[in-house]
Structures are given as C-alpha cells and as structure tokens.
C-alpha cells in the first residue's frame, strides 16, 4: 500500500472486478469494491474514498440513481465520481455529467493501464483533462 488514497469501484461484472482488482493491486492502488448500488452507497459513507468509479448498468439501483444519492448526501457529495461504463451515447454521457459526475470513461475504449493512468491523474488533482475523453 504505497498509496494511501482509496478508490471505490461499483461494478457488478465479477470478471471485470477481478481484472481491475489485479491491475490496481499491481499498481499499488487501494481499490475497494461494491457489487451493487446500495452496497456502494454504504461503503462510500463508511470508507470515505477519494474517488468512486461507478458503473451504470447495475442490479437494483442504477448508476444514475447511485450518483444522485451520493450527491444528495452531505457526507458523500464531495467525493469525486467517474462513471466507468460501456454505455457511451451522448445522452447517456450528458445525463451522467449533469448528475454531477466529474468524468465519463468507456470501458471498451480503454485498457486497464489507461484507466490507472486516468485515476492517478484525478487523484493528483489533474482530472479535468479526463472529462468526457477516453483515457
């Protein structure tokens, strides 16, 4: 754990979770995982992560609802949220950004290494460039 910063991944696809966990661990990043929205909200409150990577298609609450809930809660509203989804149409991206997300990443368009690069930039406070762009 070279880096004290905490990243919360809300993602239901088991294999992807394993992939990202492996990559983030290799890179020395602290990644915690929630498999659905409700769980994710709970963990966000409890763990106070520095960044949340949020999928949209989730069982139960979808990503947009989770985003709304995060932004509505005083405790979590200042946590940076990046949407990490395979939905990539303009309306979908716009809905996410209007809901308060700081950036939007499309899974199919970035490799795990590119994702890590983006995350590092965000954690270093240079996240603006990632907004709406692929990694």
């Amino acid at each position, binding site marked *: 754990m070279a880096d004290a910063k905490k990243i919360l991944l809300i993602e239901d696809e088991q294999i*992807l979770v394993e992939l990202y966990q492996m990559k983030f661990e290799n890179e020395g990043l602290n990644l915690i995982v929630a498999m659905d929205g409700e769980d994710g909200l709970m963990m966000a409150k409890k763990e106070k992560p520095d960044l949340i990577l949020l999928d949209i298609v989730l069982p139960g609450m979808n990503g947009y609802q989770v985003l709304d809930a995060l932004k509505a809660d005083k405790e979590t509203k200042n946590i940076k949220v990046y949407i990490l989804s395979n939905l990539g149409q303009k309306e979908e991206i716009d809905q996410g950004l209007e809901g308060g997300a700081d950036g939007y990443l499309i899974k199919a368009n970035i490799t795990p290494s590119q994702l890590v690069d983006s995350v590092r930039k965000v954690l270093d406070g240079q996240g603006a460039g990632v907004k709406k762009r692929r990694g």
Partner: protein
Amino acid sequence: MDLINTSIAISAGINLMMGILVLFKGKRKIINQIFSLFALSVVTWSISMMLYRSAATVGDSIFWCKTLYVSPIFIVSFLICFAYLFPESSDKIKKYIYVIVFGSGISLSGLVLFTDMIIKSVEFAPGQEKKIIFGSLYYSIYTLFISGYFLWLYYILFRKLRRSSGIVRQQIIYIFSGILLGSIAGMLTNLTLPTLGNFSLNWAGQISSLVMVLLTSYAIVRLHLMDIRFVLRRYSVYLASLITILIPAIFLKYLLSLSFGRQSILIDFVVLVLSISIFSSVKDYYYRIANKYFFSSLYDAREVIADLSEKLKATLEVKMIYAFVSGTLVNVLHIKTMTVLIWNEKTREYEAAFDTGHERKERYSFTEEPGFYTEVIKHNRVIITDESKEKFGERYGRTIALLKKYDIHVLVPLLVKDKTIGLLALGPKESGDMYNHEDVQVLEIVGAQTAIALENALLYKETKDFNVTLEKEVKRATAELKAANVKLKELDAAKSEFISIASHQLRTPLSIIKGYISMMIEGNFGRLTDKKRDALEKVFLSNERLIRLVENLLNISRIESGKLQYDFEEMRLDELVRDVMDELSGTATGKGLSIDAELPAEALPPVGADEEKLRQVVMNLIDNAIKYTTKGRIAVSLKRAGDEIEFCVSDSGMGIRPEDLPNLFKKFSRGAGTSLVHTEGTGLGLFVAKKVIDAHSGKIWAESKGAGRGAKFCFKLPILKN
C-alpha cells in the same frame, strides 16, 4: 217626369242592376237569391213611389200608395232572412221563422191591399206632395210591424257582428251600416214624417235605399273589402282639403270678377290652375294632421317595417327572428295567435317552429296538399283564408279545413327565390277586425324581410353545425394521431433501449478481453516470448476492430432513427490524426505495411467538430486502408486548403473499380470482390463516415485509378470562424 221621379228612377235602376249582378254572381246560392228578392222589393217600392207621385186620379193614387206600403213589408222580411243566412247559407233558418216572417208579412199586406184599415185615401195638395189619409190600424199595427221588424233585423246583425271576425265582420259592418242608413232614412221619411202629417220628403226614402243596396251588394260581391276607417280617413281628408281650397277659390274668383268684370273664363282658368297646384300639398298636410291627432291608434307602416328591419339585422339566431317577427306583428296588428311554420324537407310538412297565443300548446303541421302550395302559395304574397276559401275551397278542402281548424286568418309565405321556406300563420285580430289593405301591404314586406332573415340565419346555423362537425372530426383525427405518435415514441424508445442494451452487452465481454490481453501484452502475467506477444497483439487488434464495429452499428441505428446527436466543440484535427496514427500504426506494421504521416509543421487552425465522431471517421478511413492493402505503403496527409482543412489517406491496395465509386458511401455497400478477401469488412464504416462528415458541413470522397491501382479517401471540413 219631374226631377224627383228621375232621381228615384235612377236609383231604382241601379238597385235593379245590383239585384241582377248579385244573382248572377251566385245563381244557386240561396243567399244571393234572397238578396235579389230584397233588391226587387226595393225596386218595387221605388216604382210605386214614382207611380204614386205621378198618378193623376185619386183611385190610381190609392192603388200605388197601397203597393208603396206593401213593399217595405217584403223589404224587411227578405232582409231578416238575409241576415239570418249571412255569410253562408250553411246557417239554416229555422222553419218557424219563415212562417212567422212571411205569415205575418202576407197578412199585413192583405190588410194594406184589401182593406182601408191601413191606407184610407189620398188627398191632392196643389204645389205640394200628396197627402195620405191613414186608416185606423196604420198607427198601431203597421208602424209597429215595420219598426219592430227592423229592430229585429238590427238585433240579428248586431249578434252576428259580435260573433264574427275578419272579412265576415267587415262585410257585416258594411251591410249593417248600409241597412241602418237606408232604413233610418226610409222610416224617417216614409213612416215617421207622414205619421206626423208631413209628406214633403216622402220621396227621399227611395233614394236613400240606394245606400243600403249598394253597400250590401258591395259586401257580398267584393271580397277584398276596404277598412271603413281608412275610407273614412281618406274621404274626410279629401273633403277637408277640398273645402280649404274651394272657399278661398270662390272668394278669389269673386274678388277677381269685381276688378276684371267679364273675362270670367280666364279668371276661372287661373283659379283652377292655382287650386289644382296647391291641392296636393294641402291634402298631405291634412293627412299628417289626421294621422297625428285622429288616427293615432293606427300604426305607421313605414315605422313598423323599419323597426323590424333594424331588429332583424341585429341577429342571426333563428329563434330571435321568430320572436321579433311575431312580437312586432302581434303588437302592431293585435293578433290573437301567431305561428311560424317552417318547411321540413324530410317530412315534407310545414312544422310549427314558433307559436304564440295558442292556449293548448299542441304542435301542428301542414302536410303538402298537392297543388295548393304550387298554385296558391307560390303565387301569392299574402293569403287571406276567407278569400282562398271562396276561390279554392272546393279544390283544396283539406288545407282550408286545416286553416279553419287552427283559426288561421292569414298565411304569409316566406319565399326565398323559388322556395317557400316557411309560412307565417296569423290568427284573428283581438278586435275581430279583418286584415285591411294596409295590413296586407305590411305583411307582404314583413314576409319578404322575414324570409331573407330566416334564410340567412338557417344558412348560418348550417355552417355553424358543419363547423362543429368538422371540429369534432379534426379532434378525433388529432386524438388518433396523438395516440399513434405516442405508440411510435414508445416503439422508438424501445428500439433505442434495445440497441443500448445490446451494445452494452456486446461491449462488456469485449472490454474484458481487451483488459486481459492488454495486461498480458504489458507483462502483468509474466514475461512473454516474442511469438506469444505477436499472437496476443493480433488478438488485441481484432478485438479493437470488433469494438469499432459495435460502435458503428450503434451509430447507424442512431442515424436511422435521426437520434444521432453531435456535440460540436472547437478542436484541432492534427492532434486527433496523431492519436489515431499511434493507435493504428501497430496494426499496419504488423501487416508489413509502411505508414507515413505528412502533417504540417505549424499547428492548423481549429475546426468545430464532435471529437468522438470525427475520431471514428479517421479511424474507419485509416483502418480501411490497412485492411484493403496487402503490401506497399499507406500515406496520411493533413493540410489547409483555402478555408478548409483536408484530410486524405492513400494506399497502394486493391483499388476501386470506376463503377463502384458512386456506391461506396451507401449502407452495406462494398467494392465487388472485397468480400472474398476481407470477410470482416461490412462497408458500414464509410456510410457512418459520410453521415458524420455531412453533419459537419464537410465533404467526403474517394478516388481510384481502378482495380489493383490503389485508392485515396479524403474529407474536407470548414475552418472554424471566430
């Protein structure tokens, strides 16, 4: 023959003519026959007077004197029968009345003719009318009989007058006044004065009988009687005007003859011209005064029409028109009942649309009696029931009976062009007076006004109703369209959702493959041999192409539904091209192709573009060049051309046949033969590229010298203006 006898002869002649005229007007009618007998009695009376007056001996005088006193018995007897029968023979006289009237009449006649109890003798008085010496029963029986029978006659007429209305009433008024004038004059001169010993006006009764006969026959023969008030008004005005002119004229003539003496013809002429020229204005003046002060109960026709006209102008409501018209007519003419009947084309009946005055609110209607409407209604502007009864009663009994049943005295057809759209049915007047000439004139005009107003209102109503129907239709159609639209929107939303989910489902495994392969290539799973790395890179690139294919499919579906949205931003094409080159150079070199970029040294001006979409276009074009080239080189260039930035990618590949060039940018179109070489190509890339470039107001095209001779794909985008 003296002047008096001449006058008597003339009046007797006229009376005789009247008797004959009335008889010819209705030979078979008992009432006409009785009238003729009455006239004959009057003639006999007159002739007796003439002969009595001219008789030279006492014997002759006594004989004619007796016939002179028998005639009035028959005059009054026939008049009583006439009064009972009038206006129609349908009023049967009870037989005992005949017996009483003629029984007593004949008995009295016998007394007059064959005894000297009534007429005793005649006394000649030189230079004067003869004197009649009456018998003992004259004063009691004869005078009582005559005056009594006349009183009976008045009573009958008075009763009839009270019960009658309309034209019959007017007729009775004429008859009654004629009889009253004639009989009073006759009784005064021939009964009262002789009784008092005065025989000087003996002859006047015969002449005054003319009034009685003339008025009575006029009442029988003429149907369209004048209102006596109008006659009175007209003649009093004429008389007053005449007197007003005549007195100054005579005075003037007198004055002029004093100063000019003999030239009287010239003076007469001057006075005549003067009198005639001012007569008309004097008459008008008297008319105005008469109308103002003496006949104020009579309405002013012009004012009534103008007033109604104003009211009718102000409305297009059918019911208001009914109310205005009947209100006006009822007020002005004092009508008891009034109905507006409107023609119903479906039932072919005139139906009561508005009614006032009828106590029982039964709705009545007229079915069309063949002929009546075409013959009578169409040719008359105002139909007086009594007249029609006389003229058409036999032919159109059913209609006449209906008119009688509903107590309709006047029908005013509402004619529009050739169509009778309705009828105004007027009941009797409150006073029972008949509809006079002026009423008829007013009704003609009111009928025409009403017809036009109603026609307009009915047309307006029709249009309004049609508009309402139309509105309903439009509403219904709109509702249907709305429902259809909602359904389409639902379908569209379903389709979008499906594509979204499908692309998501496809991308998830693709991103997992991408993730693992990239990590393997990066050495996260341990060092790889060059061979393994090479194999994994090929897997990675193929996976990348699949990801692009999904993206293109998604875009096409969006383009088709018109839902592909663009997010135009200021951007630099050179950066984008460099990025794509970096990404794809591996693929090219993997195939043993050289790939060169010819980019300007200085930064190019920015364009307004959707970066993501434009990246796909550049990616598609370079990827195609790599795909369709087996050996040689690929050259990418970017330059400024005037106000535009031009991007081109050329290759030394399989080229394009000229006939394929026009179809390249169409959906699912590929150059012939390409499918055999490159199965993964779908042709979707060029289609999407054209759509995107079009949306950026740019131009995309392809060049090739032919099959096997390489190809060049280019697009141009306008430089962003400040």
